[in-house]
């Protein structure tokens, strides 16, 4: 399996964190690939919710947008967007929420709004969308993000979504009802929060990754757990299923659509 990309390793590692019949609020990109890989392998009864209001969707190809027709066509039901956020997410009916971001800090707080200042940004990013309520209300969240010292930062430029705030139980003092980030899946392995301090620490590495690589990619002084797990290499089934899904997806997204004149 030495020919796997790190992106494939991330996707497979994230898929393994999901369990059958869990209710999962899916984001576009790697989270969508991970959730559907889980559905196509060990978790056929997983309930995938996309914020466009599609519940229990089983797309044959990954959607490019959060609201592709494929998601509605294969959904158990489609509800209005205010319902998804009020009756499902804020009401605590989501087990797992996936998040990405441009920046993360050592307590799993996330920035997806701006690089630089809010009023005169160097880079204007898309913003929260559903992220801040997913971060607050999903029973747990998984964050997927490629690591560089510019993305794993000492200090966020903007706090879009809460992780553990300053740690040591600070989150539980707020009105956030969900459990916060239980894992950060990145391109060297996985960080998980320390049980007391809630600081993210290195707890797992891919077979070909090292602690030195992890430290070089993280912009804060990375805490390392006493025992570092080695993430099992992908199985043939995982890898073939993921690659077939990605191939179907690329072909579908490149397909010419008849312009409706």
């Amino acid at each position, binding site marked *: 399996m030495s020919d796997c990309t790190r992106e494939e390793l991330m996707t497979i590692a994230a898929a393994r964190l999901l369990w059958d019949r869990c209710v999962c609020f899916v984001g576009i990109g790697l989270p969508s690939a991970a959730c559907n890989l889980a559905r196509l392998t060990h978790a056929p009864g997983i309930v995938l919710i996309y914020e*466009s209001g599609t519940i229990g969707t089983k797309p044959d190809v990954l959607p490019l947008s959060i*609201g592709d*027709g494929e998601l509605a066509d294969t959904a158990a039901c*489609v509800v209005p967007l*205010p319902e998804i956020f*009020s009756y499902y997410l804020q009401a605590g009916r989501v087990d797992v929420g996936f998040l990405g971001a441009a920046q993360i800090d050592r307590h799993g707080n996330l920035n997806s*709004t701006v690089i630089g200042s809010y009023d005169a940004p160097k880079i204007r990013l898309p913003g929260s969308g*559903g992220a801040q309520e997913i971060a607050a209300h999903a029973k747990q969240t998984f964050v997927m993000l490629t690591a560089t010292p510019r993305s794993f930062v000492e200090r966020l430029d903007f706090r879009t979504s809460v992780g553990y705030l300053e740690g040591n139980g600070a989150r539980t003092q707020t009105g956030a009802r969900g459990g916060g980030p239980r894992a950060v899946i990145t391109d060297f392995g996985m960080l998980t929060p320390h049980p007391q301090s809630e600081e993210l620490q290195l707890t797992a590495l891919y077979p070909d990754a090292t602690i030195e690589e992890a430290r070089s990619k993280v912009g804060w002084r990375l805490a390392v757990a006493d025992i570092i797990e080695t993430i099992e290499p992908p199985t043939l089934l995982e890898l073939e299923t993921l690659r077939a899904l990605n191939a179907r997806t690329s072909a579908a*997204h490149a397909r010419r659509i008849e312009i409706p*004149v």
Partner: protein
Amino acid sequence: MPLSLADAIERFVPDGASIALEGFTHLIPFAAGHEIIRQRRRDLHLIRMTPDLVYDQMIGMGCARKLTFSWGGNPGVGSLHRLRDAVEHQWPQPLQLDEHSHAGMAAAFCAGAARLPFGVLRGYIDTDLATHNPNIRRVTCPFSSESLAAVPALNPDVTILHAQRADREGNVAIHGILGAAREAALAAKTLIVTVEEIVDSLPPAMNGIVLPHWIVGAVVHCRGGAYPSYAQGHYARDNAFYRRWDAISRDREVFIAWMERHVLATPDHRAFLESLRAEAA
């Protein structure tokens, strides 16, 4: 009640209006957005959860002074370059932002639809957005004393939707992904709906979204009116076009040339679609 799109925009969308072109990825009213660009509307307050390509185009063409939104990217592709250029470099003019989360904006539309003064949600907890947007405040629940987020109701002057069909009385039926379309429709002072087809009568739809005729200000027959977004049951989202938009919109001159060729130089949406089809052939 059927009207041409040009007449509907001329009559209901003046300079300075607040307008919401809703539809979450699905049924985005591109034809209406392009007609607003053709009629060179200015100083608009644009409202949309996801600005998408339609507002990227309107912002880049100088139609907007203010944007109320909750997620401003090209879905699955990356940035909206014209939105970014307006925020980062004030080109072609400064753009005031009224930024929310999806849940916050949904709550604001729901309040607007009910003609309540504000929406309430368990949100914006310890995030920086609330410190930068004075429209995000806290209220205390009078029953439990819990602190909750409050956002002012959104009541656009005009909401514009695209839908699959309307009947001759002006009742509108929508199916597929709805987003906050129903709420934005009911929150508006005036509602314009472009539709794929106008039929004699709609089939009975106990739970399909039907916007009843007396809340609909105008119905416009406009086939393909959501393209390059989509209309479930009629045509698919042109994901390849959404990808191509990244390169078209990245550069100011390329963007302007594209808009002139395909939008300003075409008299209506049909001609716009034909110009794209000719280019693709």
